């Protein structure tokens, strides 16, 4: 299939990207500008309800996403989503509502508009790897990330549950590794690529989060990774922001930078550190990047 030359998307950043994950938003916009991919932010978008809404009130959680889908449809084009949790909720809403007419009618009454069920919701990964394509992505690389050993962390929501996201193989996805190899980085084989970081419990049971995130960091380190790459602000929060805390509780030392996918791809595409928000990362990536000669 020949890729379309002009790529243009409606863009749903999600709450995190306007708060703790500002660098994800920044790097996404800058990278897409660099790659000539159009992004139009959905006007008046609001929270998708992740992660607590669907545990409390299904109708509410579906309606939140349905309204956002409806707003996005007015922009036109496929919807680009950066956050794995937003991606999962929006896709799940489409799935649930297309399976159940009753729920769809309830939701449509709640948001007072028809729900667009057929619009494509795409994660940034999908856009980079498939819409743009690995070949064109490779051509955009000016500074390949040679020698950087990356542990690709999918987390639990990008591929699961099996019937919803349809992004890649549920148990053995390769899409992140494909993107990284296209930009010259090295990927490590490790065991916790698809484990949960505990995002749901970030506030209510931080002990659980520490335990789960510790296992992930441990496994990445054991596999010989220099850094971790994520595609979700919630995973990032747990692995990066809480890393110091984990090191304290488990008396260990990682100093393992955690990048967003757009930051690493942006770096390879020749974007400068300030355009990628690298300074906003808690675990300082500069020593590693300097050591590998990537700055």
């Amino acid at each position: 299939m020949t890729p379309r030359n002009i790529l243009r998307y409606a863009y749903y950043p999600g709450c995190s990207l306007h708060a703790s994950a500002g660098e994800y938003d920044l790097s996404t916009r800058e990278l897409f500008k660099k790659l000539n991919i159009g992004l139009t932010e959905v006007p008046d978008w609001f929270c998708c309800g992740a992660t607590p809404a669907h545990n409390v009130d299904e109708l509410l959680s579906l309606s939140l996403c349905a309204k956002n889908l409806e707003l996005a449809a007015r922009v036109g084009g496929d919807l680009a989503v950066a956050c794995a949790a937003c991606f999962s909720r929006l896709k799940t809403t489409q799935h649930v509502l297309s399976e159940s007419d009753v729920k769809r009618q309830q939701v449509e009454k709640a948001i007072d508009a028809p729900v667009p069920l057929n619009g494509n919701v795409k994660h940034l990964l999908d856009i980079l790897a498939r819409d743009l394509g690995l070949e064109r992505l490779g051509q955009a690389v000016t500074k390949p990330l040679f020698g950087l050993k990356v542990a690709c962390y999918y987390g639990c929501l990008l591929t699961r549950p099996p019937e919803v996201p349809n992004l890649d193989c549920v148990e053995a996805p390769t899409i992140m590794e494909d993107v990284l190899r296209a930009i010259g980085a090295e990927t490590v084989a490790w065991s916790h690529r698809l484990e949960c970081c505990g995002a749901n419990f970030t506030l209510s049971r931080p002990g659980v989060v520490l335990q789960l995130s510790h296992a992930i960091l441990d496994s990445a380190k054991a596999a010989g990774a220099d850094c971790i790459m994520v595609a979700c602000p919630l995973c990032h929060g747990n692995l990066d922001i809480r890393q110091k805390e984990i090191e304290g509780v488990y008396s260990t030392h990682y100093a393992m930078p955690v990048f967003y996918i757009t930051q690493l791809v942006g770096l390879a595409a020749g974007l400068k550190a300030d355009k990628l928000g690298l300074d906003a990362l808690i675990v300082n990536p500069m020593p590693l990047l300097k050591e590998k000669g990537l700055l």
Partner: protein
Amino acid sequence: MSRIGVFICHCGENISRTVDVERVAAEVGKLPGVAFATDYKYMCSDPGQGLLKKAIREERLSHVVVAACSPRMHEKTFRKAVESAGLNPFLCEMANIREHCSWVHQDRKEATVKAIELVGMMVERVKKNRVLPTITVPVTKRALVIGGGIAGIQAALDIADAGYEVILVEREPSIGGHMAQLSETFPTLDCSQCIMTPKMVDVANHPRIRLYTYAEIERVEGYIGNFQVTVRRKARSVIEEKCTGCGVCMEKCPVKKIPNKFDQNLGMRPAIYVPFPQAVPNTPVIDRENCIKFKTGKCGVCRKVCGPGAVDYEQEDRLIVEPVGAIVVATGFDLYSIEEKPKGSPIKGYGEFGHGRIPDVIDGMTFERLASASGPTGGKILRPSDGREPKQIVFIQCVGSRAREKGISYCSKICCMYTAKHTMLYHHKVHDGQAYVFFMDARTPGKNYDEFWRRSIEEEEAVYIRGMVSRLYQKGDKIVVMGSDIAVGVQVEIEADMVVLATAVQPQKGADALAQKLGISYDKYNFYSEAHAKLRPVECATAGIYLAGACQGPKDIPDTVSQASAAAAKVIILFARDQLEREPIVARVREAGCVGCFYCKKVCPYGAVEEKEIRDRQGNLVKVVAYVNPGVCGGCGTCQATCPSKSVELDGYTDEQIVAMIEAL
């Protein structure tokens, strides 16, 4: 004018609950040609059949319609009854008002109306039925057994012992099948080889068994009593009659490191090999894909060292046609592999168990080879990755089985028992080791089975954890098994040295292709279908073909042997007769109308249509017409639907009969 008798069955309450049988009898009684109509509680019972026979005699009935269950169930029963009352059996028809009416509808009024119409259609049809004489055909008293595992061996020995010749065809170079791979057998723990090899030798030495190993079924033609089977004997590159089985060729073969399938690829074999030392026949075969001689043309060592001169590089596949009267299918099973499955396959692999990429995650059959005294480790339980003895071992049951989301919903039946056996074997061999078993349910019906399972827990110290494993991953040289213990309600994590998966039992690859050659039916998993789940469990719906063993569904050894002997008994029953009566549902040509276009010949799948010359008294050729050989005709009727001049008719399904039914609508 016909005098038709109609008999409506209540089938206890099965029919009468939804269908007003009395009203049906009253309504069809009014139809022209119906001389007698009644209803009865159980038409198939002795008094029911008695009623039928009495009515035929007293009412001088010319035709009979029985409205009851499916004709697949009792058509034979009623036709026999009709025959014993002096009518031709083919003047009796059945209307299916149970499976097609009372069981599938709830509205009494609707069901009753439908039943009346169904019976009415049959009344119109039966008026057009003709007297059909039964056709007798001779029986070839030789049997074909496909598959040389324990099922095929048992069936072959039983039939041969009864005095009939048997052709036993096995795809692999040796008979023995999966049972020859096992170490010990449940529930007695006797060694599989010790009870299996004598039977294999019996087969080899039996004067009435002709053994074709390294052979496959190419084509099957004919019908019950008269099959023509073409067997492809693959080129062995070793002449069986000359080979003495001394084994020098295998010793001298320079290629030594080919993974041996018999040892689940753990052990190695040369390019000229027998799969295992007790193989029957003890004649090696050259694996042409890996042989240097076949790959490069050089080498030829085995031919040089072979004293009797048995090695023949030029040998080719041979096709042999064998006439047989009955076929026993015993192709056995294969194990579900957890590897990634191709897109579109209804069966999915196990990504959560590493898609088969972790070397110390093995399946049950591989464990059997490790535990077997004649196996690649000499009976020591050692890890395939580094040869160390595993001190913590985890067994996971129901891998693939009972997992609808993986594409298989059935229970594989044997895994609970063999896993219990594995924990025992492990405990006997690794005294300081600990075995854990994750299980959903323990299913141990069978003589001495539950006792055996309990022993694995109570005496052999296996820890059984009720719950499934969500995921396992490699951590250093350990495998971390994450699961849940639903009895206690906690998550469990075990660092194991080895994991054994009790993978699902599946039919052999290519089971569907063989079924298509044989013309037998199979289910969505490719297990072969028996004619009736309870009452005809060893016969196929296709006459003259019988099933034995795991090709019909997962089975353990005792069940397999029982079914094999049952299949043999069915064959022996068939062979006890010299002549076989076959249904006279065959096509006949109306020669006056036939113009000799022979479209029928083109479409006939049996090659039953012949060309027949019609000559006048002077011997001048008038025309050439089609002739259907009634012995060969399968009775599908494709010729009739194809014939442009409607000059060929299938007895029992004539245009007249069918149009009469349609017109009765």
